[in-house]
């Protein structure tokens, strides 16, 4: 299967790695693997201590009003531009969507004025210059922009490992026209992994069905939430995959933490594991499973797959 994702202009610098609350607290390996890959791909980036949370969890749980989210987004854009790293690279698709949505809303003069009133108190302004400079990209887009360097960097082949993409809804469905590739058959994770010898799944039944997390739904309507997760797990199991690759910590969290629980309660087997795309790409490029990819933070046992690809045998980098 040849890659279906179109090439995009290579990003080499000016990147601010936008830290995510879920990544930091639940799967810190995703952040470290992303940084590790940026280094391998010669992407110049910073982590900005002035950046703050995107407010996604609070906003989607109806705890924060939208103007708050908007003001925070405007501030985050300002600090990135001030730091000379205007390409916000999101590890989480919610951060991506909420900031991108805010960018559009901030084009409405009334909302921009309102946000700027708040920003004025901290001596900042979201003006045309900031709006014209800031760019919002998912980390996978930045990695895809440099994907031609992957074949030369492979240290561990993943021959015979079958992977399927779980497309994140806040990446694919909020701005379907701005997705790199096909919003209904998102392929960057598999296309990134293709040179390593993985077997790609491509499209499968209910590919676009979501993970079930739904922010507060996970807490408020757990039975519906988990039923959707189970449905998706069954579909993935039908494809006989080894790894489901993710692009959003919300999905990864929902699947990874619930996988075994659902298996037990439903008396079914889903013989595969969940990894972030960055983690698996980094493993193929020789990264350490613990210090770089942070696999110990996973609830599932990923050791068998690590052994299968030889990640436990020797340090290669």
């Amino acid at each position, binding site marked *: *299967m*040849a890659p279906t994702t179109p090439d995009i202009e290579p990003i080499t610098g000016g990147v601010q790695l936008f830290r995510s609350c879920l990544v930091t607290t639940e799967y810190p390996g995703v952040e470290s693997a992303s940084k590790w890959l940026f280094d391998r791909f010669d992407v110049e980036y910073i982590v900005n201590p002035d950046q703050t949370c995107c407010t996604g969890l609070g906003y989607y749980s109806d705890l924060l009003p939208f103007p708050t989210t908007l003001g925070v987004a405007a501030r985050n854009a300002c600090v990135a531009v001030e730091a000379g790293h205007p390409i916000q690279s999101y590890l989480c698709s919610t951060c991506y969507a909420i900031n991108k949505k805010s960018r559009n809303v901030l084009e409405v003069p009334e909302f921009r004025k309102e946000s700027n009133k708040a920003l004025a108190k901290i001596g900042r302004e979201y003006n045309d210059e900031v709006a014209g400079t800031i760019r919002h990209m998912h980390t996978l887009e930045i990695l895809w922009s440099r994907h031609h360097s992957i074949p030369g960097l492979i240290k561990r082949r993943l021959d015979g490992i079958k992977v399927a993409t779980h497309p994140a809804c806040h990446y694919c469905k909020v701005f*379907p*026209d701005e997705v790199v590739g*096909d*919003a*209904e*058959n998102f392929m960057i994770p598999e296309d990134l992994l293709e040179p390593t010898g993985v077997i790609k799944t491509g*499209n499968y*039944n*209910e*590919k*676009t*069905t979501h993970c079930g997390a739904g922010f507060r739904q996970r807490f408020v309507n757990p039975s519906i939430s988990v039923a959707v997760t189970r449905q998706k797990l069954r579909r993935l199991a039908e494809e006989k995959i080894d790894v489901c690759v993710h692009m959003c910590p919300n999905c990864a969290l929902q699947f990874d933490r619930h996988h075994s629980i659902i298996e037990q309660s439903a008396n079914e087997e889903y013989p595969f594991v969940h990894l972030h795309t960055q983690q698996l790409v980094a493993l193929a490029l020789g990264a350490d499973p613990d210090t770089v990819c942070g696999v110990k933070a996973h609830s599932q046992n990923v050791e068998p797959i690590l052994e299968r690809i030889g990640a436990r045998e020797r340090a290669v980098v």
Partner: protein
Amino acid sequence: MRCGVFLCECGGNISGVLDLDSLADSARTHDGVVSISRNQFMCGTEGRRMIEQAVEERGLDRIVIGACSRRFQGPTFERIARELRLGENAVAFGNLREGCSFIHRDEPAKAQLKAEKIVSAAVARARFQSDLPRGRTFLHRSALVVGGGIAGITAAEELSGAGIDVHLVEREQSLGGYMARLSKTFPTEDCAMCSLAPQLTGAALDPRIHIRTLTDVTEISGPPGEFRVKLRQRPRFVSEACVGCDDCTAACPVSVSSEFELGVTKRKAISRPFANAVPSLYAIDKRGPAPCKSACPAGTSAQGYVALVAEGRFDEAYRVASGPNPFPSVCGRICTHPCERACARGEVDEPVAIAALKRFVADHVGPETVIEKVPVIHSEKVAIIGAGPAGLTCARDLAKLGYRTTVFEALPVAGGMLKTGIPDYRLPKDVLEREIDQITALGVELKLGQRAGKDFTVDGLLENGYGAAFLAVGLQKSSEVEITGAELEGTERAVEFLRRLNLGKSVSVGDRVVVIGGGDVALDAARSAIRLQQTSGREPNVTLVYRRTRAEMPALGEEDEQAIEEGLKVEFLVAPLEIVGKKGRVSALKLQRCKLGEPDSSGRRRPVPIEGDVTEIEADTVVLAIGQDIVCDFLEGCEDVSVEKGQIRIDRDTLMTGKSGVFAGGDAAATGGWTAIEAIAAGTRAAHSIHNYLRGEKLFEVWPAKAAEARPSAEELARREVGQRIPAVLLDRSDRCASWAEVVGGYSEEEAIAEASRCLACAVCSECEACVRACPAGAIELDQQEETEELAVGAIIVATGHKEFDARRKIPLGFGRFSNVVTQSQLARLLAPSGPTAGELERPSDGAVPKKIFMLQCVGSRDCTSSGNEHCSAICCLFATLHASLIKQHYPDVDITIGYTDLRAPGKSHEEYYRLVQERGVRYVRGRVGEVMEEADKSLRVRFEDTVTKRKNEELFDLVVLSAGLEASAGTTEIAHVAGLQQGSAGFIKEYHPKLKPVDTQRAGIFVAGTAQGPKNIPDTIAQAKAAAARVVSMLSAGFVLTPAQVASSNLEQCIGCGICESVCPQGAVKLSGGDNPHSVVDANSCRGCGICAAECPSGAMTLGGYSDEEILAEVMV
């Protein structure tokens, strides 16, 4: 200037805000104004009379109108001026309504001041307005209709009826377009073909309609009325002699998906889309040489014999395989098969095993083939020196051309390297002998044991009755290698070693053999050594040493795998330093270890010694297999022939040496690689050259450049199911090493057919020529070429139609992945009595009648995602309703659900039809489908929301039909580019005005009809086609047209000939002419008056009528 100012009250619209009396007073002060009038409605009859009167009484030559927008009533006043013979540019406009009174009602004082400026500007402008000349163009009474669907045919008929000659051009092989594919049409449910067929026949018989199929329009130039049109007609490969008997399709072995049947079934490479097709001739879909044919040095139609094998027609396959190659059986075994490297199947999984299939065919059929001896028809004799593949091929080809040939061979056996270089376990001797026997059976004389330069000389032959000679002496000795110890006993040279072995001489090897080299000869020597050891009861102990790695090894991959299986040891990255001897015998080989460095000129990475890393292998036999050299005995008595760098010097086009009449080829004078197939190709070329030489014809024939090969697109390849090739059976290791039996087994019939069926038919027509043999009328003409033609026509109608939206783009709907998801058009074929199922509804996966059908509307239409189109495709609601109705009537028990967005049934009798079909029991559900999923039994799970009951449904269906929308066809996009027409959303041609000029395009003289303009049903298409025809008739009936007034013109005095105007003109209306002293010339008929050229002109020579710099600036500066 004598100017009259006419101010309009516009029934209070203007006068309610502006004080027109005061405005008149201000206007009066301008120079040149000699008359002022005002009226309630200046555009009315009273206003017109005022203008007429003023012109007559006051002698006006300019008119200033202060009224509404020029875009609104401008044409009315311009017409009045024209009719009063004031010329084309006598009116200036001041926009007092939309530009002043309407938008400044709140500020009347300021509005008044602005109105004064507006009138003042118009007066200022009027002063610079001069009359614009208009020319006449006389019109050709002929028209071009592009597209042979129902729109094109209808328009052509109408035009013919008006006595206009029509050139009807169609890119497909027959007329009929989309309508020919339909089963029935809504709302009357009458048969589509029944109404179309008489139209088709009518067009074919009409003497005024000139039909050209397989034809593209490549250029349209010139002005309306006298367009010059260039056409390119692709070859049909079938002549008018075709009687439509269909014998050819039975003979053709190649089946591909049928475009006419929308992929529902297959067609042959030679085909006719439907029985009533016009023209009724068949056509061959020939897309160039297949990659395999293109890659074969001898040009064998590999796709051709593979296709015939797949059909079990082995005799015919043999005929194709042996056509250019007298050694199919040999090549099936030992050819380097570049065809397989080129095979497109290799991009899907593994290449088709072309060589193995060739071997199968030759082994199966070869022996029984009766050789037809060709009589000698030429007096000249030809001498061939060397009975290898090059010499024997040349001899055979010359014999077939009617020459007497004699082959002189130095050895006591024929076959050259095939005989003396290749061991039996790869090529059994009887296989080779059989094919040589077939060559001698043609009358080729073999003289063995005759060494050129010793037993005879080439010059001697030419003096004694031979008209020409071909030197195919090969490379008969091993290259000399400078290595210490090469003289020791136990050192062998591979070519000589193998020759002794293959001639049956006694050969022995020691217990420890080392072979130096990485080519085929090295492997042959190594594997032979293993057999020599084993047949004498010893354990195999043979090591191959090679300077680079396996990746760089020139030998075939499968062969070194077999050798390793047989016990061969291989040392990579070692270079021989010295053969170490003890008492005059070999005892070891000293080796330098290497690593890979930079690539060399051959692109392979050069081995670089690792300083100080030297190793040694014990050995008692060392075989040197590091290249071959020419033996120059033949040069004796062969004047003017020279050898340079180990090769006979030849002219690469004719293969002639320095001596007239003496040619050379094969390994001794290679034009490609040193392989058997290259030698065979050289033999064929030499035969052609010798024939040309002897006949005195075009000796310096340049071989035609290879045509671009036909290859499936990456997208097509991606859709192919991944499989694998059928492996050849290998002799068991223990059996094969102890004997010289052939290692690789051949295919069985079943295996051969299965393997051949993997062919992707890249070129569609495989050039097997089965149709040529089958055609009773002799109508097949495989050498037809593309033709171009130029026509002059007065007007053009674009009727290039639509294509169905590619439903694959809506990935979750499963089209292209699930066999039981079809499109509405495919369903039309399944329901058509003339279709592949003869009108029986069968679901594709198993042919059963579906019990439950879901029809899914708005696929790719009314869709704002990037994979769909925003527009409504207009016909799908009723198309689905029609099919549901047809199915309900034939299979009342079938349950049909139509999932729609909105049900749209405007148009005569359409709503009534929708209600009727609802009453027939078809379920309509408002709601779009999220996803279609396939179950294990190929039934389909459809998830949809009923937005009326607000319920989410998930149901199983046997068949899902997608109502895929309409998009502009590829032909529409192409003609838009060629004709410079604008395309709107989804590529449909933009009409000049959506309401008032619905069949005119942006380009005068070119009209549009049918679905090329936008989605529509058949009656609307026909109405529009007739409208377009009427436009052409009214245009051409005038006899001449006036060129437009507002066009660019160039002042020759000022023009500097820079050509900027030509480069910016969007219509191509401005051209440089005048050779060395160029100046720009405007074609007034093509110019549409944008003025880009005037603004760009650096010298001020170019101007635009009605918008000169003076006119514009006069207005600006007020």
